[in-house]
């Protein structure tokens, strides 16, 4: 991502602003939602449990503007189902999902909701529709009938933001997996959403592309104030989130800052999550009396924690 980012208007579409004023500060308001798949074949993971239990049971969650929320859970825990309820791909069996004041149960609101909530999945090829990169980004705008000049301007800005301007005339199939995922994000950004849902966005990427993708999502969140809901089963992807929400068998079982949630690794093991090696190392060091914070799950965070400890030790020695 060497491309400079071009600033895009941070304001929400007018309709959304009007609605958001009524609904207070919350971007996403999920109220006591239960969801049962009509038949297991429609479930994102068709596990046995899905046949018996509803995919979601009594889930309530509020997401604030500019928040980076990681939805964490193992396969079949309900995290993808929850993500799909937010932009009205699924409708709750009971309970309510509100997006900036728009109720997803009202079909006439779906268009507004999908403009406000962009979504990307593990496999970008599922949402790339055009044969030329810039056409793909423009597609959503053109389909909504925006004037050509605005389609151009917004597509250009979105491509610049994700660092694909140089590839605008290429075919998406010639791009790497990481570039295609960035193209999918550009397509979502072109609609200037208030919230981006990324459902396991790094599952198919190679390690460097994962690092780049994490950097892009956090940059969009920090610089644009874009609300990000990042669905993942990997703790390290959630380490820099503002809030981690853990789902298990369709319920929210734990939430808090990464430092709070990751302090109880044994609990996370029970929830069938993979504890990264750095998490295990931190746990061992804490037992040896070294105060590594539980959310130091990336090499950068871990080494800066070590540096802090080293400085403390020097200061301690000088006294």
């Amino acid at each position, binding site marked *: 991502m060497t491309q400079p980012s071009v600033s895009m208007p941070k304001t929400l579409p007018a309709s959304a602003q009007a609605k958001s004023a009524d609904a207070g500060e919350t971007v996403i308001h999920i109220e006591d939602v239960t969801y049962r798949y009509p038949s297991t074949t429609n479930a994102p993971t068709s596990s046995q449990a899905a046949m018996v239990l509803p995919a979601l049971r009594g889930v309530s969650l509020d997401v604030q503007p500019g928040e980076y929320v990681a939805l964490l859970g193992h396969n079949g825990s309900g995290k993808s189902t929850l993500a799909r309820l937010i932009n009205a791909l699924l409708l709750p069996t009971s309970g309510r999902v509100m997006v900036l004041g728009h109720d997803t149960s009202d079909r006439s609101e779906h268009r507004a909701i999908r403009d406000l909530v962009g979504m990307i999945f593990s496999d970008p090829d599922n949402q790339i529709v055009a044969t030329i990169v810039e056409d793909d980004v423009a597609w959503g705008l053109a389909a909504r009938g925006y004037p050509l000049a605005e389609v151009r301007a917004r597509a250009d800005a979105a491509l610049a933001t994700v660092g694909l301007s140089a590839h605008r005339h290429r075919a998406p199939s010639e791009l790497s997996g990481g570039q295609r995922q960035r193209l999918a994000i550009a397509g979502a950004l072109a609609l200037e959403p208030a919230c981006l849902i990324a459902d396991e966005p790094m599952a198919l990427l190679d390690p460097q592309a994962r690092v780049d993708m994490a950097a892009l999502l956090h940059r969009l969140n920090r610089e644009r104030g874009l609300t990000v809901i990042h669905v993942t089963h990997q703790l390290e992807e959630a380490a820099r989130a503002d809030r981690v929400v853990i789902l298990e068998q369709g319920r929210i079982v734990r939430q808090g800052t990464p430092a709070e949630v990751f302090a109880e690794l044994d609990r996370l093991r029970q929830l069938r999550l993979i504890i990264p090696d750095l998490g295990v190392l931190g746990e061992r060091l804490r037992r040896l009396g070294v105060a590594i914070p539980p959310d130091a799950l990336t090499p950068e965070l871990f*080494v800066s924690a070590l540096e802090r400890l080293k400085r403390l030790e020097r200061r301690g020695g000088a006294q």
Partner: protein
Amino acid sequence: MSIVVEHLNHAYNAGAPHEHVALRDISLTIPDGVCAAIIGVTGSGKSTLVQHFNGLLIPTSGRIIIDGLDVTAKTTRPEHLLELRRRVGLLFQFPEAQLFAPTIADDVAFGPRRLRLKDKVVKERVRWALNAVALPTDATFLARSPFALSGGQQRRVALAGVLAMRPLTLVLDEPSAGLDAEARDEIYACLSDLRAHEGITLALVSHDMSEVAHLADMLFALADGELKLSGPPAQVFQKTDKIQACGLLPPPLAQTVALAREHGLPITTASDALLTPARLAPAIVATLGAPGLNGHGKEST
């Protein structure tokens, strides 16, 4: 079953204006019974390489000798390739996408039936293969649809379908991609058992350095169609710069040690042993000074 690759070159559309050289002068040996991992970024040539292991691709020049079967551009005959594909099983990425039969039994039996084996033998193989991937073999389970299983179970059914061909070597492309902890550990357990009990040689294509560290005895790192690094994981992971030059990231623990060194925190580790949290913790304590230095680190059990 050993795999010997000698000066292998592979070009797609050789001789055409849009010729693309995918592999250049690759030489490597995977001894019998070993688990070798082929690592590299997208486009580095690793999938092209492993597709030579069962004759899906034939070298443009150079050769590959699989269990004594010599595959070169000139000598290869169809019957040769058939034999090769019996000996070498290939599990593609996301193999559950290839499940197709109405029942689990039919899906796993598809390969052996094409070998025109007797029904009784096919049934035995299906049972053996499902057993090898730790799935039930009772009649109720066999009659179920593979599509009603969880993602991890579906992947193991797909693996059973390859195993039912009784291969001597198994080539796996990203076997744990997209699986959760439990499903991943189940796949790892199956692969370890197959090596231990059947002596199957494994060639693994992977992006996941933790997976590679866990399973592989030898690593081969490809970049731009060339072999850049090879050796046991503990050695290869020490060469942080060279791994990064291949566009790969070393496992997080190795990255952390290298980054700490850059920041003036020299953590001393053994050069021949794979980094583990258990090995690294005392080394970090030594680097920071005496334990208990911070006063607010809680001592737990």
